[in-house]
Each structure stands twice: as structure tokens, then as C-alpha cells.
């Protein structure tokens, strides 16, 4: 690369600056809610649990696959027998009893979403970690479901495998077959 006359280089640089002053700014003010940059649909925020509106229960069965596959071991889950299943209202034999994710430890990798067979967990669009209490980033089942509901409503979320994962009980002529 040939070195130009220094004056030319200087003036060229000035021209760039002058032209840029006439452009629209590309920066956004962060904390103001209405001025935030829009998130793309695929944005991966914290994981959240999804809610099955058809029969009003979570999709999650507490199978613990995500707990085992998480690279940071930041989640824990416990399952219980599903009372709705006993009444014949749901196809899910087991249901989640308690679920905790330590969001401060989660690295937003999305592995839990990939491994879940029940479409029960999704990367929501929440991304803010600052809290007023020390342990407020350990979120429990209800908070996770709340996050999930916000996400589901925002994106009009539908399960990826609706046939397999719907909790609506099968018609009686097929023998009882749980998820």
C-alpha cells in the first residue's frame, strides 16, 4: 500500500467524519423501555417453561433430561404423579412438581431446549439479571412459567411436535397411552 501525501490522508479522514455527522445515530438508549432495540425472534434469553393452554398445565413432565445435559448444572427438577391424569383429563402421567434454575449460573447455551423431548422449555426473551435480593436469580417453577407465558404470547408459540406432546387425552377407543 502506497503512502499518500499526508495532507490528502488527513482531509480524507475529515470528509468521513463530516459525512457521518449528517447520518442518523445508530446508538440506542438502553434502560428506557420504549427505546430498546427490537429482539430477533430467535433471541436466546433465559430458559422458561411453557404452559399447555389446552388443558391448563405445564408441558414439562420433570423427566430430568435437561438437568443432566446442562453444562453448568444450574437446574434442578422434581416430578410427581399427575392428578389430572388420574381424573382422565390429561395424557401426562407425570408432571413437574418443582423446578429451579439459577439464572446467574446459566450460560444461555440452549442445550436444554435442544434435548427436551416434550417442547417444555424454551429460551425466552428475558435477559436482565440485576435483582434487588441476593438469591433472586434462582427462579422457581411459577416464575419460570410466568416467563414462559410472556414468551408464548409474544411469539404466538406453538409446540414443535403438537401431535406427540399435546396433553389432550386420546379418544377412548385407543388404549391408554401416556406420553
Amino acid at each position, binding site marked *: *500500500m502506497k*503512502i*499518500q501525501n*499526508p*495532507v*490528502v*490522508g*488527513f482531509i*480524507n*479522514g475529515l*470528509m*468521513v*467524519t463530516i459525512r*457521518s455527522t449528517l447520518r442518523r445515530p*445508530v446508538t440506542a438508549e438502553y434502560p428506557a423501555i420504549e427505546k430498546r432495540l427490537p*429482539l*430477533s*425472534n*430467535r*433471541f*436466546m434469553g433465559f430458559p422458561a417453561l411453557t404452559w399447555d393452554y389446552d388443558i391448563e398445565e405445564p408441558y414439562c413432565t420433570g423427566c430430568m433430561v435437561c438437568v443432566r*445435559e446442562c*453444562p453448568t448444572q444450574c437446574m434442578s427438577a422434581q416430578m410427581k404423579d399427575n392428578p389430572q391424569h388420574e381424573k382422565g383429563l390429561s395424557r401426562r402421567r407425570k408432571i413437574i412438581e418443582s423446578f429451579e434454575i439459577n439464572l446467574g449460573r446459566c*450460560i*444461555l*447455551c*440452549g*442445550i436444554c431446549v*435442544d*434435548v427436551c423431548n416434550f417442547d417444555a422449555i424454551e*429460551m425466552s426473551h428475558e435477559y436482565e439479571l440485576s435483582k434487588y435480593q441476593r438469591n433472586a436469580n434462582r427462579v422457581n417453577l411459577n416464575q419460570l412459567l410466568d416467563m414462559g407465558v410472556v414468551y408464548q404470547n409474544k411469539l404466538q408459540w406453538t409446540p414443535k411436535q403438537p401431535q406427540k406432546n399435546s396433553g389432550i387425552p386420546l379418544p377412548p377407543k385407543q388404549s391408554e397411552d401416556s406420553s
Partner: protein
Amino acid sequence: MQVHQQVSEYSDAIDLMVNMGPQHPSTHGVFRLVIWVDGERIVKVEPHIGYLHRGSEKICESEQYSQIVTLFDRLDYVGNLNNELAFCLAVEKLTETVVPERAEYIRVILCELNRIASHMLFYGVYGLDVGATTPMLYGFRERERVQELFESVTGARMMHNYIRIGGVKEDVPDDFDKNVLILLDHLKRGVDECDRLLSQNEMFLARTKGVGIITGEDALDYGVTGPALRASGVIEDVRVTDPYSIYSRFDFGIPVGSNGDCWDRYYVRVEEMRESIKIVEQAISDIPDGDISAKVRRIIRPPVGEVFVRTESPRGDLGVFLVSDGSDKPYRVKVRPPSFANLQALEYMLEDTYIADAVLVLGSIDIIMGEVDR
């Protein structure tokens, strides 16, 4: 060697030992540099590393193969996708997985865009190192555009976990081609603008020309790779000399410098962004349809063996050495980080320069401490 001789030569004259870092804004992370000066002239430097050591290589031994990709994201946290690619290539070589064409193209496009983003960061930060605050804003503006594209494809701006063993995580969105072309248009103009703003500026030239010179042979001896080596006039780029993935299909040049000084190291990167744009253009024009991932098990158990893979990350020659004992976790993962090797030449480059240039020379190597310390 020479450095130590100089110390003894000047030992009476040394009058100050300056400690720079570890918490110094221009050390690009946490890096400590002890400098012995004689007046304004540097007599000897002693780099101290390890402040960001997280034991990544050791943690790899207790994680499954698919989980390790997330750790590689965090080595070079500016060129994440290039690092993911290096590890995935290593596992694929060991398991003899054939990656579908479409996945290869997506990988190359994203990796080259990542290279541009990384060099843009260098451009901005190097401007700051020199003392000019304006280039930082230009560099970050262009980088932001690339990251917006990454967000729409991978879901994350930095730690993507998108390149997986056997392919990529999911197919690109429908408007990917269109968005990439728009982005390339912006980037072409952006690179030209950045070039015009800084490269020929008289003050910038005065600060960087002839500073921190390293000759081609010495750079090779020190194990310097990547743009820092090419600036010394050595034509060496893993994408060309030892092609991996599908790089042999693309037509692009290797920019080389001639003097091996700071300005050459800077300008090689600017030119490299232009070459990367060419690669992305070619890749986007003939990206095929098809699968985006080979059939791999969720828990990967490669056969017993060892494998070494080298790739060209934005900073140089990134090598991954992987030993498998047949279980679902690797026996040993060794990373050969380019920044670590490039940093070894710092002592040589700083020899007999002024103390005001120490930050400049350090900045021109473009180190990422996450990769140096692992």
C-alpha cells in the same frame, strides 16, 4: 537472548521499573507487563499472564463432547464461531463424520463474518490505543451490524453455541441470503470508510510506521501466526496452505505486509476484511439446499485415538489436539491458541522502542486474554 544481553549492558543505566496492568484499560483484558526503562527507552519487558485462567482445558475433560462447544465459545470471545468450528472439526475428524454441504457453507459464511467483526473490533480498539477515539465508534458500528445478523441466525450476539458437531444447530432464517447481501453492502462501504479515516492519517502513520518491527524469520521462529506473521511478509494462511472445511473452493487473496511494523499489522487486517467479504460473496451465491446436520448421536462416543486440527482464527493458527479414550468425555483437550504464541514475540518487538509505544505494539498483536490464559 539479545534482550538479556542488553540488560547487562545497560544495567547501570536502568533507572525505572514500570508496572503496567493487570487492570489497565489498554491491556485488552487482564495482562500485566513489567517494563524496565532507561530514560524513555525500553530495556527489558516481562509479561505476566494467567489472571484470566479458568481451567477450560481441564473442565473439558469432565464435559460431554456436545457441551464442550460452549467452552470453546469462551476462549476467544471475539471470534467465537471460529473457535467452535475448530473443536467441531476435531471431533468430526475423529468420528469420521461427513458434514452436509449446506452446513459447510453456513459455517464458512458465519466464520468469515465473525472474522470481519473481530477485525472491526481490532480496528476500533487500535484507534483507542493510538489515542484516537473516533475510530472506535466506526469499528463498533460495523461490528454491531454483523452481530445483529448473528442474533437473527444463532440467537445470541456473542456466545452462539451454533456450530455443532456434525453440522449447525438449525437452518438459517428465510431472509438470510437477503440480509447477508445487505450486510455486505454496508460492510464494504464501512471498511472503505474506516480505511480512509485512519490508515493514511499523518499522526497515525507517525506513531505506527517503523515501530515494533519483527522480521519474517524471527516471527516464524517465535511461532507468530496469522495477520501478525503475514505483516512480516510471510505468506502463511491455513485457509490456503492447509485448507480445511471448504475453503479450497473460494478464490481470495492473502494480504501480506512488507516491513512487519505496527502499521503493516494494522493494514493487513483491513485488507483481510475485504478478502473475507469476497469469500462470503462467493459462498452466498452458491450455497446449496439440503440437510444442515449429519446424523450424530446425542451422546457422542468417538473411537479411541487422537487428532490434531488447525484452523485460521482471526488471530492466527488455532490448533486443537484431542485425545479420546472411547468414552463420552475426552481424555485430553489441548488448545494451541494463536494469541498465546503471538504474545511471545512481544518481548522481541518491544526491544529498544519508546515506552509510549508499548501499548501500540501490544495492541497491534491483537491479543485476547481469554484465549491466552484459557
